[in-house]
């Protein structure tokens, strides 16, 4: 029975005075979001995307293209399974070839998502709330793409379970002293933990979608997915604690994953691989490429789905700065590798590096160096790092460069074996190219489904960084200390 019913004050959605979110004035912190936002407008803006009755035509076009790509990839994988790995360009001495390059590339992409969701959470970076859901989704989808390559690369894919220590009648166990097995555990743990962290973060927002759902299908689907979340104070209390704990766990995890990936190379004796700089160098490169991918996806998504007031130019600018910083770490690693190759006095190591820059693959090396070291330097200029076209161009080139980095490391070192008679020049086949291109189809298919049906922005988290919610902190002062 309703006793009192005061009319709820409806805040008009009016355009706020233009604020310069890009202001560098240190005395005042620009707002994290632009426009006049309140709790309801955030809910409406984010849920509105998932609730749209008619799916936009552009989404269908993009989805059709992505599904086509994905189909091509699975067709190529099927072809490979029927014919054997010989359909790839992999052969002695380059037995790793594109599949491993693609694996490292995709795993690296995922790292930015965890950095944004976990590390920036621990650092209390309020701006992350607008982009963390999006970046975490990207992580999950990138890890899906990554996992396919080594699984197929083992040759007999139906024996992939041998990678796990499953008791069997032969009483054989995997070799736990091999970095390749460490990688199985690292990537599996990473995939599971990221998925858990992403999903957990989404439960309150799924509950919002459930409460607003109109159709029966939506009510049931979001109802199941939101797990009966009510938003009671006890739930929130435990949830926040769990979120903090998972962020604390995901932080060393993400740093370990690409370190372990680098062990695949660094623990071997191959010149050009056997270096101690690999773990930090790989992690920096992973974050570098991941942020480039976030920006590449974010620019069209925020335009297309009308999220420009939540994901402002400031967010993009900060990400560009991170790209610049990590790009220079990567550049530093390139330089130090050369220095140590000379200073270490190992003739094989020295040859490997001279061969990288001046050998038959010099074109790949210089593509890498240009895209990863020179191109991001444009972000020193504010005009350029706040220009969407420049950002987009630089970020695509960074991803090209980071793919080439893995190509340079994997293929060049292997192509020049210790025995010159085994030397060869690696050439990919059409199956190699189509499988890799198709993996983007899988990535974008998953991504478009996410954008269409799930909350793209962490609404509950964004609400806590609204100025209206900050008011609550002031009350702590009135409360006598206990």
């Amino acid at each position, binding site marked *: 029975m309703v006793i009192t019913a*005061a009319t709820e004050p409806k805040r008009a959605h009016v355009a706020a005075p233009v604020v310069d979110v890009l202001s560098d004035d240190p005395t005042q912190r620009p707002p994290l979001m632009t426009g006049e936002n309140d709790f309801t407008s955030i809910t409406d803006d984010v849920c509105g995307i998932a609730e749209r009755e008619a799916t936009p035509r552009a989404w269908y076009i993009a989805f059709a293209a992505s599904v086509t790509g994905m189909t091509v990839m699975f067709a190529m994988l099927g072809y490979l399974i029927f014919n054997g790995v010989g359909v790839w360009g992999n052969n002695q001495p380059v037995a790793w070839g594109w599949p491993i390059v693609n694996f490292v590339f995709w795993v690296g992409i995922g790292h930015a998502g965890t950095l944004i969701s976990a590390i920036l959470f621990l650092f209390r970076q309020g701006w992350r709330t607008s982009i963390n859901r999006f970046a975490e989704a990207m992580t999950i989808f990138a890890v899906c793409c990554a996992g396919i390559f080594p699984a197929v690369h083992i040759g007999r894919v139906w024996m992939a379970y041998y990678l796990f220590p499953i008791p069997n009648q032969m009483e054989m166990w995997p070799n*736990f002293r091999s970095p390749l097995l460490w990688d199985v555990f690292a990537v599996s743990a990473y995939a*599971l933990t990221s998925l858990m962290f992403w999903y957990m973060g989404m439960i309150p927002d799924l509950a919002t979608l459930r409460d607003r759902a109109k159709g029966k299908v939506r009510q049931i689907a979001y109802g199941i997915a939101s797990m009966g979340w*009510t938003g009671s104070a006890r739930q*929130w209390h*435990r949830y926040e604690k769990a979120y903090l704990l998972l962020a604390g*766990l995901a932080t*060393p995890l993400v740093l370990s994953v690409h370190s372990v990936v680098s062990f695949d190379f660094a623990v071997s004796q191959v010149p050009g691989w056997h270096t101690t700089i690999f773990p930090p160098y790989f992690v920096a490169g992973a974050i570098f490429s991941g942020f480039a991918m976030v920006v590449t996806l974010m620019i069209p998504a925020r335009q297309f789905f009308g999220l420009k007031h939540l994901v402002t130019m400031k967010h993009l600018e900060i990400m560009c700065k991170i790209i610049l910083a990590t790009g220079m770490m990567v550049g530093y690693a390139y330089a130090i590798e050369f220095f140590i190759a000379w200073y270490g006095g190992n003739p094989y190591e020295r040859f490997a590096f001279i061969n990288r820059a001046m050998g038959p693959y010099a074109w790949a090396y210089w593509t890498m160096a240009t895209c990863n070291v020179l191109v991001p330097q444009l972000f020193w200029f504010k005009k350029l790092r706040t220009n969407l076209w420049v950002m987009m161009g630089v970020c695509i080139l960074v991803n090209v460069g980071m793919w080439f980095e893995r190509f340079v490391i994997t293929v060049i070192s292997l192509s020049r074996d210790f025995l010159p008679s085994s030397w060869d020049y690696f050439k990919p086949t059409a199956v190699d190219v189509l499988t890799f291109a198709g993996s983007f189809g899988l990535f974008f298919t998953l991504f478009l489904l996410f954008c269409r049906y799930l909350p793209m922005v962490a609404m509950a988290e964004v609400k*806590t960084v609204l100025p209206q919610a900050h008011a609550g902190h*002031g009350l702590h002062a009135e409360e006598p200390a206990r």
Partner: protein
Amino acid sequence: MTRHLHIGYFDDERRLLGAARECRDRGIPVVDAISPFPVHGIDEALGIRPSRLPWVTLVGGTAGAVLGLLLQYWTAGVNWPLNVGGKPLDSFPAFVPVAFELTILFAGLSTAGALLLRSRIWPGRGVRRGFETTTDGTHALVLEERDASFESREFRELFLRHGATRSVERAEVIA
């Protein structure tokens, strides 16, 4: 048995906190506060004790580390002793990465599992539609009327004094 609930709806978390604190100070039983986002200070106002979740994480992580090391030592050194490059069978440095990943994985899974169990949420669990859900911008404070010392009118006044947009009274049958 029925219990009488009084629910006040607030647009602003400060008002919710104010009302919750007054209830705490006056000893009015608060059933729950329901918010679309975590409200700082509400734990204290409602007297929610600190979560013991970190202990679950600790136990899960420790179990992961111990099991990870044992698994590797037993499989590679005891059950099928494998000589890899002449290294000793108890080559623990080589077992660190997998043990580390399992530590994180077990800690993470046990934390998430404990969260689901303790918060009583799991896939497919419905929401008891006792009162309207507040997952948008409104907060709700649910109070229980236990004895006659505090009348319905007083609940209403308490809510309104703290700026509630409306208040609702509901009799709820609990089994």
